[in-house]
Structures are given as structure tokens and as C-alpha cells.
């Protein structure tokens, strides 16, 4: 059978299917469940300096083509995170997502998680619905550049920069974060939804992020554009539910993929189903390893 091991920067993964930040990755028990169900790695829910309750419900709303959410970066804050995760057994398969409002906050968070033995961070430069952080930071090219370089200078962490698709010039953003070990593309699209009989917004925060099958073409375009321009390691995310979706991302340059909203439609068996499908595709198409199809459709 074909090999589906892969690497992102210097991180080697047994398989390329990763749980995306924000879905079923707040509690350590759920992270372990994903890993034991066959995820190659897991990204945690984003952690900030201080505890945040997040927004009032409703925080999600299903739409025909995916999901709207405005959970609002609820997180227990870095002190409580450290307390829960200091003796967590799967630190090498867990990428900690962090968010902050400025360079110093990102650097502090990165330092704290490195201290307890994690070696990878994903920078949330892209949450579309919280003021002063996420994509508001992530659209400031100078700040993005400084956040990435400071973390690279001051820690040994591998850094994945999760970029927002809600910009005109994604390439400029990718270049600003080029010191990162990898790009995670993409976060949710800024969106809203309406309930017509009450004439109210479906999310308490009005604005949320749109994920799921409907955003896959946008995510594919982002992966294609950035891979073509930079050739760097890319973790593809956005609307991946099946192995066929995953293959599309590999062909356009992604070295691994993340799934999130898929867990609304599928159970925890989704990891093994996608991995089995990838293996079978590689076998059927005469490839001996996943590496052989990564970026195969992109002329560089």
C-alpha cells in the first residue's frame, strides 16, 4: 500500500489528516479522542492571554453549504491552559493555536507553551469575528512579520501561520509571514446569516465565520496561489469532508490537510475514512507515496 506519511516544515506526520483549530479541541479528552481515532495531529482551540467566555449563544448556525460560527475565541486563558496541559501525553502531535492583540502577547503565549514541552504553534492571524485580534492583526502586514520573526527568534517552536482569506492580496500576507515554517490556509470567511420570520441575525454576534463544503473552492484557490508563489509547506483547510476533497488540496500543493466542520457531518471515523481513501487513490493511480502528488498540478 502507498505511504501516506508526510512532513510540514520539519514535523513528520504518520498521516496527513489533522483536526483544525476550533472544533472539538478545547478539552484534552477530546484531543486525545481525535488522535486515538486516527488523526495525524490536532490543532487546539485558540488560546489567548486571558480567560474569555466567548459570545452568547447562538454561536453556530447551519447553512445548506456549511456552517456559520461566532464562538468568539472562548478559551480558559494561558494559565489555565498550562495547568490542564502541562502533563498532556501527546504534545508532539498537538499544535497549539494562539491568538493575541499585539506582538508581545503572541511571544508570551509562545514562550509559555514551549516551557511545558509543546514544539509547534499555529498563529491565529485570521479569526474573522473578534475585534482587535485574529484577522484584524492578521491584515497588518508589519505586525504579522514581526510576530512571526519574534517567535522564531525567541523560541525553538515550529510556526504555522494561519492566514485570513478575507484580504485582497493574500500573497503579500504570505510574504509578510515567510519566516514561518508553514502556512495554514484558510480560516473561515467573514459572513452573516438571517432568520426571516423573526427578522433577526442567526448569530448573537451578527458577524461570524463561514466554513464547510461551500468554502472549499476559495481554500483551493488560496493554496494554489500561495504554493505557486512561495513553494513553502502548506496545510490546506476549508471544506474538506471526504478523501476526494483532500486529494484536491494535495494536488495544488498542500502537504497536509485539516478537517473541522466535517465533524458536523461525520463521526470520529472521518480520520480513518479519509486516510483509507487517500491510500486507495494513490494505489489505484499508481503512486507509491503521498509526496508524489503534492503540488503535482502546479507549475513552479
Amino acid at each position, binding site marked *: 500500500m502507498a505511504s501516506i506519511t508526510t512532513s510540514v516544515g520539519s514535523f513528520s506526520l504518520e498521516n496527513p489528516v489533522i483536526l483544525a483549530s476550533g472544533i*472539538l479541541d478545547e*478539552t484534552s479528552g477530546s484531543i486525545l479522542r481525535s488522535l486515538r481515532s486516527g488523526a495525524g495531529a490536532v490543532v487546539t482551540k485558540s488560546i489567548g492571554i486571558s480567560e474569555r467566555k*466567548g459570545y452568547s449563544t447562538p454561536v453556530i448556525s447551519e447553512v445548506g453549504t456549511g456552517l456559520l460560527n461566532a464562538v468568539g475565541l*472562548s478559551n*480558559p486563558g494561558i494559565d489555565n491552559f498550562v495547568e490542564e496541559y502541562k502533563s498532556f501525553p501527546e504534545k508532539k502531535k498537538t499544535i497549539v493555536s494562539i491568538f493575541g492583540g499585539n506582538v508581545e502577547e503572541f511571544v508570551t503565549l509562545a514562550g509559555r507553551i514551549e516551557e511545558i514541552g509543546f514544539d509547534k504553534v499555529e498563529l491565529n492571524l485570521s479569526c474573522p469575528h473578534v475585534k482587535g485580534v485574529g484577522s484584524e492583526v492578521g491584515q497588518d502586514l508589519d505586525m504579522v512579520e514581526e510576530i512571526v520573526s519574534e517567535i522564531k527568534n525567541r523560541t525553538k517552536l515550529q510556526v504555522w501561520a494561519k492566514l485570513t482569506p478575507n484580504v485582497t492580496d493574500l500573497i503579500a500576507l504570505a510574504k509578510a509571514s515567510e519566516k514561518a515554517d508553514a502556512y495554514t490556509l484558510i480560516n473561515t470567511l467573514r459572513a452573516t446569516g438571517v432568520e426571516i420570520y423573526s427578522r433577526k441575525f442567526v448569530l448573537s454576534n451578527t458577524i461570524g465565520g463561514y466554513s464547510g463544503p461551500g468554502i472549499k473552492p476559495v481554500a483551493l484557490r488560496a493554496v494554489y496561489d500561495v504554493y505557486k508563489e512561495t513553494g513553502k509547506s502548506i496545510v490546506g483547510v476549508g471544506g474538506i469532508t471526504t478523501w476526494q476533497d483532500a486529494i484536491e488540496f494535495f494536488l495544488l500543493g498542500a502537504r497536509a490537510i485539516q478537517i*473541522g466542520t466535517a465533524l*458536523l457531518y461525520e463521526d470520529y471515523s472521518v480520520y480513518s475514512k479519509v486516510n483509507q481513501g487517500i491510500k486507495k487513490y494513490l494505489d489505484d493511480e499508481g503512486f507509491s507515496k503521498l509526496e508524489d502528488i503534492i503540488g503535482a498540478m502546479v507549475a513552479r
Partner: protein
Amino acid sequence: MNHARVIDIVKENKDVFTLSFDFSIVAKPGQFLMVWVPGGKEIPMSLSHITSPPSITFRVFGETTKFLSGLRKGDRMYFRGPYGNSYPEPSGRIAYIAGGTGLASVYSMLSKYIGDVFVGARTKDDLFLLKKGFKIATDDGSAGFKGTVIDLFVPHVDDYDYVFVCGPEPMAKSLLDKIDRKTKTKIYFSLERLMKCGVGICDSCSVNGIRICKDGTIFSIEEVLKMNEFGVFKRSESGKIEFFAKNKR
């Protein structure tokens, strides 16, 4: 998002209401809805009747439930669901143990499967939906047995083939602690945790990686015993661990 017209709203006691609504729902006993107040919050609520017309029974404890208690016949109500699994089909002798508004959930079983009902409340004024023959426990002894519903029930566990439990987590934990675990009686718990999404993706209600909203809300005693977080700590809205007070029932 579904919407339906309120058929009736009944005040069951000082702060518990049953709201029935016009909707042909396909639900199993023990399932819940995410009920939304437009412009306000969305909260999980057990169905107390699943046959037509369906109803929810709830205690007023905040803005959302206060708003719902003020709805009148003909007003619209909004909800998603039903969600969650359901109580398994029982046979033989059945007992129901309900604490607080946990009675709403077990009520959805009662019309189909007759059994003995053990109800716990703080005082007689907190009781609701009572029927003849219910076995009652109150903390202050103002009605029935003085003490907890678990203490009232535990001596009788072997009289039953199936037991269904719904109530606050410390109550369920107390049953786990007091019961003879070698009992042949099949015991099922409907569990309750802070829920945000109701559909198994936000992780707010997870206990040891088990999603109360999607893998449950109903679990066998064997499944609950595997959850070493159960009855020990819960999660706040931020995801922070909060320990239950010790020695509290």
C-alpha cells in the same frame, strides 16, 4: 431553524412552565431541542412530550426562560433539533429518578413505558407535574421523604429491571457512589452539561472526550463509570475547569 406557534403554556408551579407547540416533530424519548429567543440566547431543553402536540417543561432561571414563560397562545417559538440519542427501550419493571427539571426528560418516557417515579426537589413548592403514586423526596421534608431522592431510591434498586435517571450531575454522581455496582439492574443516565452548539462540534459539553450532546445525552452506567471527570469537574463557558463542591449532594 424551525418555528412553530405556541398552542398553550401552563404554569406548573411557582417557576416551572410547560409550553406546547404546533409542530409535527419526529422525536424519541429523551431528546432535546435548542430553543432560541430571537435577538437573545439559544438554550438546550428536554422535550417533556414527544407525541402531538410536543412540549417543553422548564424552570425560569434567566432571561431566556423568563421570555419563554411569557409567550402566549399563537406566538412563535423557534428551535433546532431534536438532538441527542434516546432512552433505550425497557422491559420488565421500570423506575424513573428525577431531580429538578430532570423530570421533563423522563416524562417523555412515561406515556409509553409505565414505571415507578421517584422525584426529588428542594421543597414541596418546587414539585411539579406530579401524578398519583409518585414517590417524593424533599430536602426539607415538606413533602414525602426528608432527604435526597437518591437515598429514597437506593434501597429499592434491585426491585427494577431498568432505571432511568435525569437530574443535576451531583445527584447522578451520588447514585453512582451509593449504588451496589454489582446490581443486575440496567441503569441509564441522561446527562446535562453546558452546551453551546448542541450538535457535537464545539466541545463545551465534553466529558473525557465524550460529547454529552451528540454521543448522549443518555449513557449506560458502564459508560458513565468510565468518565473519570464525571461528578468531579465541569467546564465554564471559557472551557476552564471548575471542580464540583465536595460533600454536596
